[in-house]
């Protein structure tokens, strides 16, 4: 892992973030809880990809 580097100062530090969405939570550092992930996966609709259609992009 590369060492951490000094945090840069924002060029225009307006407080509040301004519409960037929900605040991120720092990930937990313990070993992944696979059971919880498997639960999340079981909620995925098996047919979701069948219904998914996009236009070609770039």
């Amino acid at each position, binding site marked *: 892992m590369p060492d951490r580097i000094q945090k840069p100062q924002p*060029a225009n530090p307006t407080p509040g973030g301004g519409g960037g969405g929900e605040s991120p939570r*720092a990930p937990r550092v313990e070993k992944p809880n696979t059971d919880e992930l498997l639960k999340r996966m079981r909620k995925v609709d098996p*047919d979701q990809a*069948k219904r998914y259609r*996009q236009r*070609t992009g770039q």
Partner: protein
Amino acid sequence: MDIQFGTETEIGITREKPDGLDVVAESIALVRSATAPGVRMRWDYSCEDPHCDARGFRVKELLQDIDESNYFAQDAQRTLTFHEIKSDLVLRNGARFYNDHAHPEYCTPECSRLLEILQQDYSGDSVLIACAKALTQNSDNPVLLYKNNTDFRGHSYGCHENYLMPRTLTWDVLSQAIVAFFVTRQIYAGAGKFGWEEEDTFIKAGFQISQRSDFFSELQSVDTMQRRPLVNTRDEPHANNELYRRFHVIIGDSNLSLYSTYLKIGTTCLVLQALLNGAPLERVPKVSDPLHTLKMISRDTSWKWYCREASGRPTTAVDIQRAYLQLVKEYCTGLDHDWKAVLDAWEQVLNDLEVDPLSSADRLDWSAKYKLIEEFRQAEKLETNDPWLRSLDLAYHLLDRQQGLFYGLLEHGAFKFPYSYDEITCHSLCPPPSTRAAVRGRCIEKFGAAVNATQWDYILLHGAHKKIELDLRNLFDPNLIKQSLKIISAAQSVEDLAVLKFAKLV
């Protein structure tokens, strides 16, 4: 480092119940739902020209997908104006967010450090997530956004990279030297895909390490939507075109893993810098039949990635990458600590991929996705061609922190980061401080209502009595940018910006 960089990411959009969905209308509505501070519908399209070819000519027209011709006719029936359909929003971080025909697209501002591109990419994801939330409110049919590159029907959309660099490196050398790098970079930059496709067609089930490798069928061309090339020849620097080249890279996957993005952009910058520093073409690896090898590597389920050099000698993708790594070590000797760290991370991931590919699942999208979904497949006793696997693949890319599978892994500490997570994520919508994006962003934030028009390389503002154009085509000196930011901060009116060295009254 003489290179600045950024990305343009097209997003897949649908609803939970997609019957009768108009993806263009959805994309427009999504972009227009943004509440992040910025300037809307002031993007100047008149100076864009994607027909200029780096090989020294201008093409008459671009290839279009067959479906697209019909779609264009449909779109012509819409009651919205061109600018309303595009709905460009230039954000205060200097980014661009708009509807690119049928996909919401977020373009980061120009960055000069790898931490910055991770911050800006993360900010874009946050803007998109906020938009989806806003559009879903008061609806029983949630918006779903996918940061991926395919619909598993052969319709691909891109995550382009841009590298703004001195024009001293000739196109002939650049376009030859980069081919084997792009063919093999997918072993760490690929996002993984449970399906094989070609343009407009799903071929069959099966895992491969890249989302995009199925869609490249030319070595070089200016096209981006059909018969896509390994090396895109678009010559549109958005800067002084006598001094600068914007190398427009269309072959990469959309990455969610911050480490994958770090490696993808970082290694590409280093290879380009080595070439700028004089790494000779005869020392650069050449791969036999690059288009075939690209797909072969992506679809190789042994993960040994055997291939051949142009001479016919057997080699592997890992060894080709090592040859580029060696060139960088020899020709980029003055790297600072931050860039040396990329070299170490690159070398480490190549070693890991050679010995135990899935040990990279703490850094790379493709291996993280494969490991997660394969574990699920076995637990649920699914066949390897079960369509559910493609739905799970989609779910990995879902931009939703509560439902997306990437975010599930992230939440549970499955990923390493090249910088601290807080450094990357707490930098909300501020531009990179040492590139011209800071000037653009500061003007947008402070004088947004006065912005008449903007592009990557200029801003036109109207004051009470005068119009002022800020010409950003040559604005790459960090000291000048720093001084200019002080002037902009102190300015009481648009007219006060006239003292900027790159301002002119129009």
